[in-house]
Structure formats: C-alpha cells, structure tokens
C-alpha cells in the first residue's frame, strides 16, 4: 500500500492562468497539469511548470496512456513520461481507465472499455507493466461515458476497484464523471461511490458538465453543479480527507472564479468531515 499525501485543494493549471499564478501566491494548495502538454523540448510551458513546482506540490495527469488499448504499450511515451516525472518530481502520476488509440491511430479522447474479464486481465497486466516501467505506482481515473457495451459484464465501480486491487495502483475518483455516467446509464451514483475502496483513492476530481438533452457531456466548462457537490460531500465522508482538484478546460474563466471553486471544495470537504450533531 502506498501512503499518498493529502495535498489539499488544487486546480488544473492551464496556460490562461500562467501569468496570474506566477505573479503572486494564490490561495490554492496545489496544481495538476496535463502531462502530454509538457512532454516537449523547451519553451514557456516547461519553464512555467518548473517555476510553479518550486512553489507548489504538483501532480501529472495524462490523457494518452491508453491503458486499455489492445495495441502494445507505447514505450517511447512511457520513457518521456518517466523523464518528465524525474524532472518535476510530482506527488503522483495519473491517467484514465479508458483507451485512446488503436492500430497506431490516436483519437485524443477518453474512449470507453467493455468491462469484461478479458479487459480486466488486460488492464491489470498493463498497469503493472506501466508501473514497472515508470518505477512508481500510478492512479487511474474513472472517465465519463456515453455508451455501455453489450458485452460488459462487470459494473464499472467493481471493475475499477478490482484493477486497483490486482495491479496495486491508486484511484483518481472523479465524482463529476460518476454523476455524468450515472445519468447517462441510469445507475445510482452513491452506489458507485460506496463501492470504491476508500484506501485506494489518492485524489478526487470535480468539474462542470453540460446537459445536451439526451445525455450529459463532461465538458469541464462550467461551475460544479449542486448534485456533484452533494456527491463530493458523500465521497468525502466515506473516504476522508483526500487531495481534491477542480478541472476547467473549456470557456476557461478568470482566475478568481476558478480559485473560488477550489475554496468551495475546501469548505465542502470540511463540512462533510465535521462531527455531526450527536456525534461523540
């Protein structure tokens, strides 16, 4: 079991906020960045990352590991991720429970997996291989999904927990994604959260989504909605104090709005963890 630090409440670092974050101390505790955006040779993004790292804890969050792909693992990608991690010394490295590439082609999207025994064995083997290659454990995040495969035989929450157990990796629990998928597929989000092994959760993600009428879309483009705040409090009561992060990737607001959302997460977690009336 890996003991991971509670980094407090952070936000995803995006270039629109580089100047603000560098100019003065912010009220957020930590930052997370998209790993692939910094797997580059030089330029401003890398320099900003190193400066931010001097002042804040930081985590690397990838979108191209393609842990569920039937293609072989991309060793060149893993080498570059390992190099970036050695340079930045992040609190942890994470990616998504999904696939993003097949046949050597990349979708640049988090695509859903069929939750079968075959996929489970495949993902467990690959997480172990990735962890061996990187020399560190990783965390996997539940992605939002817009379809379920006919062949899926394992509920996502069981699948994720089993991967974490058998591969000995962490879980990045995105409660907005749980909510989006719950609405899209008609399951109870609290049942999902209650089934996740609390000791495996390294981090919680919060974000906004969009209602497209026939489905919810995980757009990271709005404030966190009330139902997701409720789920966050529910998850916090189950899991305890764990690093939490607000993501915002489209229609990116001014820094103050994003920072306020992070502070709201701090308040929500405090409220969830406060002793209840009548408690000893």
């Amino acid at each position, binding site marked *: 079991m890996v003991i991971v630090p509670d980094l407090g409440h952070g936000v995803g670092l995006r270039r629109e906020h580089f100047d603000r974050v560098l100019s003065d101390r912010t009220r957020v505790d930590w930052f997370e960045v998209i790993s*692939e955006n910094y*797997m*580059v*040779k*030089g*330029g*401003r*993004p*890398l*320099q900003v990352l190193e400066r931010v790292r001097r002042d804040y804890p930081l985590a690397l969050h990838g979108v*191209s590991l*393609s842990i*569920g*792909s*039937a293609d072989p693992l*991309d060793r060149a*990608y893993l080498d570059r991720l390992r190099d970036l991690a050695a340079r930045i010394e992040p609190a942890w490295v994470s990616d998504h429970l999904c*696939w993003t*590439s*097949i*046949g*050597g*082609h*990349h*979708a*640049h*999207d988090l*695509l859903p*997996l*069929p939750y*079968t025994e*075959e*996929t489970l064995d*495949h993902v467990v083997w690959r997480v172990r291989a990735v962890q061996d290659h990187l020399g560190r454990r990783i965390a996997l995040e539940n992605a939002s999904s*817009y*379809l*379920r*495969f*006919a*062949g899926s035989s394992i509920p996502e929450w069981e699948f994720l927990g089993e991967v974490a157990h058998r591969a000995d990796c962490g879980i990045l629990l995105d409660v907005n994604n749980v909510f989006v998928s719950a609405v*899209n*597929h*008609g399951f109870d989000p609290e049942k999902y959260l209650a089934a996740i092994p609390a000791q495996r959760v390294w981090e919680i993600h919060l974000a906004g989504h969009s209602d497209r009428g*026939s*489905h919810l*879309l995980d757009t990271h483009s709005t404030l966190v909605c009330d139902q997701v705040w409720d789920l966050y409090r529910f998850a916090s009561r189950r899991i305890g104090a764990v690093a939490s992060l607000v993501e915002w990737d489209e229609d990116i607001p001014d820094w103050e709005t994003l920072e306020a959302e992070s502070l709201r997460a701090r308040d929500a977690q405090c409220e969830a963890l406060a002793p209840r009336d009548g408690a000893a």
Partner: protein
Amino acid sequence: MTVQPFPDLRGVQELFWKLVTAPEGVVPGAAGLHREGALESEDLSFLVPPTGRLGPAEQLDIYADMYFHRLRDCLAEDFPALLARLGGARFHNLVTDYLLAHPSSHFSLRELGRALPGFLGGHPLGRELPALADLARLEWARADVFDEADGAPLSREELLRLGAADPEEARLSLIPAVRLLRLDASVLPLWKRLDAGENAGEEAASPAAPHGETSAVRVWRKGFAIFHRSMPPDEERCLQMLARGGASLAALGELLAGAELPGAPEAELAQRFAELLDLWTEDEILTLRIPRGQSISSTSKEK
C-alpha cells in the same frame, strides 16, 4: 437472422474506431462496413444496446462528434490564418479530408498538424489557391518553434570576444528554435492582414506577386515570443550555412565576400557583416556550437 457475437477487445476497438471516424457519420459508416462484409447487419445493437433515449448509432455519434471537433479545434489553434482565409466551412472540409489521409499517429495533439502543409499542396483547395500551402508552412513553423528546445543565444559581446580570440575556430550555429523557409512571396503580407483580423477575401486569394516568386523567411523564438521576417539572399545563404552544421565567423565572412558581395570594397563587406551579426544577436538566434564534452564556460575560458 443471426446476431453478430460481441467481439474481443481488439475487435471492439477496431470497429469503434472505424465507426466514429467514418467521415459521413456512424450510420453511413456502419452501412459501408456491412456492404464490405465486416458487419453482419447495419444494426449496431450487438455492440451497443439502445437506451431509452438513444439508439446505438446515436451513442456512438457522441464520440464521433467529439473526435472530429477536438481535432478540428486543435488544427484551428495551430493554423489560425489558414482558418481565417478559408472560412469555417472550407476549413471544416479540409480537416475532414486531412484526418482521413493523416489520422493522428502521435500521442500528442501538438503533432497533429505536421503533415497539413504538405497535404494542402496536393489538395484541391491548395491547387485553387497556391499560396495556401505556404501559409500553412509558415503557421506550422511558428507552432513548431513554440516549444522547441531552449537555446543558449550568444550576446553581441560574447560574439565579439569569441571573434577577437579566434575567428577561425569559434564555431557558430543556430539555436534550435529557428526555421528557414522559402515561401510564396504573397504569404507574409497575407499572414499580416489575416493576423490583424482583416478579411483577406478574394483579393488575397489572387496574390499580387505572380505564383512562383518566392521569398526567404526565417521563423524564430526569442525568449517566449515567436517572430518571422523575410530575409535578403546574403542573410539566407549565411543562415543556411549555419543550419547545415555551423560555421566559423571567418567562414561566414568568406561566404559573404565570395558569393554574395563579390568584388565589394572591404569596408562595405565588413559593414554588412557587422549588420548581420547585430541583427542575429539582437534576435538571439546564434549560439556556440560546442564540441562534445565541453560547456560554454569552458570553451570561453579556452579562448
């Protein structure tokens, strides 16, 4: 009718990929796969069961839309002038054709547009508007140097010290974040108008300079800012020499004297050489080509 069995993991992913990247959408894509014999029927419920609100193809279409729009937005960010010149509809069609020919083969979206300038050269839009491919080359070069490796540019003072110490041996080269291009002569003014938000319109589609007339252009990053400018022939020759493997100050001087300004008075040559060195050091594009195992400081000390 038999129900097609649910595929294994690779089968699911290969079929999913074909369906969500089908250029006309999931339903025509499934029909095409059925005609080819890859699907037993056009009904995709063996793969994705219908929900109360969405059928199988509609669920897959959500991913198809996201795939295309994410990649189009990425290309729009890397080629803003091309988008402005073409307009949204024609850019959309170009991206559709491009992604069919060049689906992303790199884990980073940063690489998505690398083949677009070349593709545009052979595309009907590129044949209709010959300067477009060069406009795309300029934009790609600007995007490419953005996160290119950092260099250690020489200051004018450092260059003078090196030159005074040993003009034969001190070997110079270009920092990594420099690209040397040869572009249709209409491209730089076109880019400037588009960058200023002016509607280039049909006037810009018929460049003032006849097609075939080109100009040398260098693109570079100074600090974190991206620049480009046209170059006269003598500068282009010198920078090409530096880009090919470096050159000493003496060799650059000989190149100017022999090829670019033959027969020119020595004072004129010296003045032109000094102008170029001033320009390059001001733009921070020169660096010292360091022999393996040496650092800049140790090289400087030796001088």
